[in-house]
């Protein structure tokens, strides 16, 4: 193979031609997204279906979803470096890579969403210090810096790069103090995940999202952080499984997968209890105090019914949590993978309703439900990060030692 010298020792990869063919297939999707992105930048946000009802739309849902799913990086880092779960060293590289993709995607989507990305620095220089979104921007940017720092040593461990003395020492030194970076990342993640939830929770003019809370923080602040820590590792496990299926190899040992699934399951179980309590209190106290019945939020429209509440809490929360906290459930690959997929769908639904159902539900007596359909440009730019992520994973899987257990699990004859 033309690139054999770059491939890690002890692993087998497909031919270079097949690799390029895969890149080209995903690259075509990427180009479609880039075209839509350029339309949005050059022609403006009139390319979207956002309007006075929907200042937040598909992009913000995608942002919140990928940030929650990317939470696997900070929580896995927290578990490995700060609580000493050393087994997770076998999946932490992939968690960091997935986190890096998720957060860079979130920043890319925001760069399209702001309409004028050349002025993105205004949020730092002319900061509105009374806005939760400012805090989100600060923490998101800083945490992306942390993820980049966590990702650099992995790149430097490429066979050829690691031969360069400076890079070899730099990677070693970065590993030495990674706990400091991981702790900073956990701190930053706690606040930006929370503030994303806080943005919905403080909307006192939107009774669907509004929550009471502790001091300045609505309950959604804590629920968002908690859910990111609970569901993020499930996304890491899901992408690991997809990578195993595509590569046709076992890449991580079952004890590592089961440990992360167990921790994720218990986090999810505690989260979903808190979420159910929050929902009952909101439905029986908070919403009625604003003049609404809970049924007002789930009837008289073509899409949002009680089914979405059941899908989020029961199917996307209770069921996967019960499977993952049970030894028999998480040891059974079919049950475990089903739970992981349900959990990922569950947290995506949660972010969807907190962004889009919040905007859709009528508030005034003369209001009607305002349903929204994204334009193709919004869809293409939302698919763009998926293609970008797939390409980055393909390149990293081929050239970097992402899975330390791969040579042992797949010996070359």
């Amino acid at each position, binding site marked *: 193979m033309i690139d054999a010298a770059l491939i890690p020792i002890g692993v087998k990869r497909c031919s270079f031609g097949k690799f390029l063919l895969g890149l080209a297939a995903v690259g075509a999707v990427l180009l479609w997204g880039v075209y839509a992105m350029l339309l949005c930048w050059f022609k403006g946000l009139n390319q979207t279906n956002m309007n006075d009802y929907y200042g937040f739309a598909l992009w913000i849902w995608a942002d919140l979803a990928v940030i929650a799913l990317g939470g696997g990086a900070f929580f896995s880092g927290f578990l490995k470096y700060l609580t000493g779960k050393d087994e997770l060293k076998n999946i932490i590289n992939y968690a960091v890579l997935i986190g890096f993709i998720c957060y860079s995607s979130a920043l890319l989507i925001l760069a399209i969403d702001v309409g004028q990305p050349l002025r993105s620095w205004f949020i730092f220089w002319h900061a509105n210090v009374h806005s939760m979104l400012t805090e989100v921007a*600060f923490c998101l940017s800083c945490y992306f810096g942390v993820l980049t720092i966590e990702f650099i040593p992995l790149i430097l461990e490429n066979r050829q790069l690691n031969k360069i003395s400076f890079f*070899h020492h730099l990677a070693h030194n970065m590993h030495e103090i990674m706990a400091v970076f991981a702790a900073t990342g956990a701190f930053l993640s706690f606040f930006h995940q929370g503030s994303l939830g806080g943005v919905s929770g403080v909307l006192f003019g939107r009774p669907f999202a509004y929550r009471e809370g502790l001091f300045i923080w609505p309950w959604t602040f804590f629920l968002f952080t908690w859910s990111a820590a609970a569901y993020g590792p499930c996304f890491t496990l899901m992408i690991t499984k997809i990578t195993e299926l595509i590569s046709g190899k076992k890449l991580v040992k079952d004890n590592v997968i089961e440990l992360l699934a167990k921790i994720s399951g218990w986090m999810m179980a505690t989260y979903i209890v808190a979420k159910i309590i929050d929902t009952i209190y909101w439905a029986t106290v908070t919403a009625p105090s604003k003049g609404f019945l809970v049924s007002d939020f789930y009837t008289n429209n073509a899409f949002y019914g009680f089914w979405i509440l059941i899908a989020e809490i029961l199917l996307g929360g209770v069921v996967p949590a019960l499977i993952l906290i049970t030894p028999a459930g998480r040891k059974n690959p079919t049950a475990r993978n089903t739970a992981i997929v349900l959990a990922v769908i569950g947290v995506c639904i949660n972010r969807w309703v907190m962004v889009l159902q919040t905007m859709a539900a009528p508030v005034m007596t003369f209001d009607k439900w305002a349903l929204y359909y994204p334009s193709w440009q919004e869809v293409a730019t939302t698919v763009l990060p998926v293609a970008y992520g797939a390409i980055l994973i393909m390149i990293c899987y081929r050239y970097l030692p992402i899975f330390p257990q791969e040579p042992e699990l797949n010996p070359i004859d």
Partner: protein
Amino acid sequence: MFPFNFEWIWDMSHMVFMGGLWYALTILGIGMTWCIVKAIIDMGKGDGGHHGHH
């Protein structure tokens, strides 16, 4: 934003928000500077030892 910018106000919000930002950036900056400087020193010592990171 820095305290010498015209829009800066010495209130709790500015100190917490901007203080938090600069605090996080300082940790990351010092950490990376330490890694780079130590890598240059190690390289000068000719220490090419393989430490085994994982």
